[in-house]
């Protein structure tokens, strides 16, 4: 019995797929991705920074957006910042159990940092330490803790190979 040609082609393509050992990204690809990431970060920063700059500009010029407010713009800004601080402090005081979203985000962060740490990048190891301390209840945080503990354990275990025996 003849097999459907689409099925044959798909099966053959699947059997020959290089993804059974997915090729790591090459330097040029990484560079390309890094540039895009940088552009993305720049755009995000601009989105955050522009309203703040606009507010600062208004404040420095003494512009009143709301004529009813009798306080000066700098007092108004200081009060808003204080309110923001209070809100943040109250949020910090109430540690929420990890949600599915934060769990997932921590897991992704762990994966990214672990890839860096596996390449020997010290800042990624620092990142893992932060993740383990900041989000100890998430899966990502726990994985980071496991990674750090295993690493520390390996460091503190004396090697079976003495230096002198190598030099002799």
């Amino acid at each position, binding site marked *: 019995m003849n097999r459907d040609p689409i099925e044959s082609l798909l*099966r053959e393509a*699947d059997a020959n797929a*290089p993804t059974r050992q997915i*090729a790591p990204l090459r330097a040029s690809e990484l560079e390309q991705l890094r540039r895009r990431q940088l*552009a993305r970060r720049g755009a995000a920063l601009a989105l955050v920074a522009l309203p703040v700059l606009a507010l600062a500009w208004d404040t420095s010029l003494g512009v009143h957006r709301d004529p009813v407010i009798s306080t000066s713009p700098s007092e108004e800004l200081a009060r808003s910042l204080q309110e923001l601080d209070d809100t943040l402090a109250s949020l910090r005081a109430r540690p929420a159990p990890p949600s599915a979203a934060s*769990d997932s985000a921590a897991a992704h962060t762990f*994966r990214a940092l672990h890839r860096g740490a596996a390449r020997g990048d010290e800042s990624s190891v620092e990142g893992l330490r932060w993740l383990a301390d900041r989000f100890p209840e998430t899966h990502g945080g726990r994985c980071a803790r496991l*990674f750090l503990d295993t690493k520390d354990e390996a460091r503190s275990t004396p090697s079976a190979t003495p230096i*002198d025996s190598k030099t002799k």
Partner: protein
Amino acid sequence: MEALAPPIPALPSFVGSPEPFLWSVRGDASSEESEEFERRVRAAWPGTVRLVERLLAWPGSASDVEDVVQDVLLAAWRGRRTFRGEAEWTTWLHTITVRRTRNAARARSRRERWFGRPDTDAVRDAEAQGDGATPPMESDEVRRSLGRLRHADREVLVLRYLESLDVEEIAVRLGLQRAAVDARLSRARKRLGELLDGGEMLR
């Protein structure tokens, strides 16, 4: 006394194994429940990774696949009590895998719309030729065409021809009626045929 050489820290093998994930969920449930989950995940792990690869790779990177697999396991762990045993556990996990992969494919497509797609195909092709391990051109073309299909079309083709599921089983996993799966399959075959040299390769 001889001085000891500083040991090289051994990195635990996180990539390509369910163990770190399983370690991270231990203690969140009774040991009996954890053990049952671990046994099932270990058995289903290779099939899950393979399915995500088939649905998401070509083009796609190993890290995309790993991220989705980890998402699938998290979702399975969180929803383990909603599994009522009406279907096989692997069918249930399959359904989660298909949905999570679909979300990842959507996110990737949004990303590519904004920032473009890294031209990884050309680099890898050149690399493969340099290695003397060139896969058959035809297979290469088929994989590339599969990657160009809409995700919904790719889903049915992969589930039908690579995962060897029948229409009924695909309907369960995609939450569709049989007729809808049939229609989608026929449309996907047609689109793939058009992409493959306008059907030249099917003759």
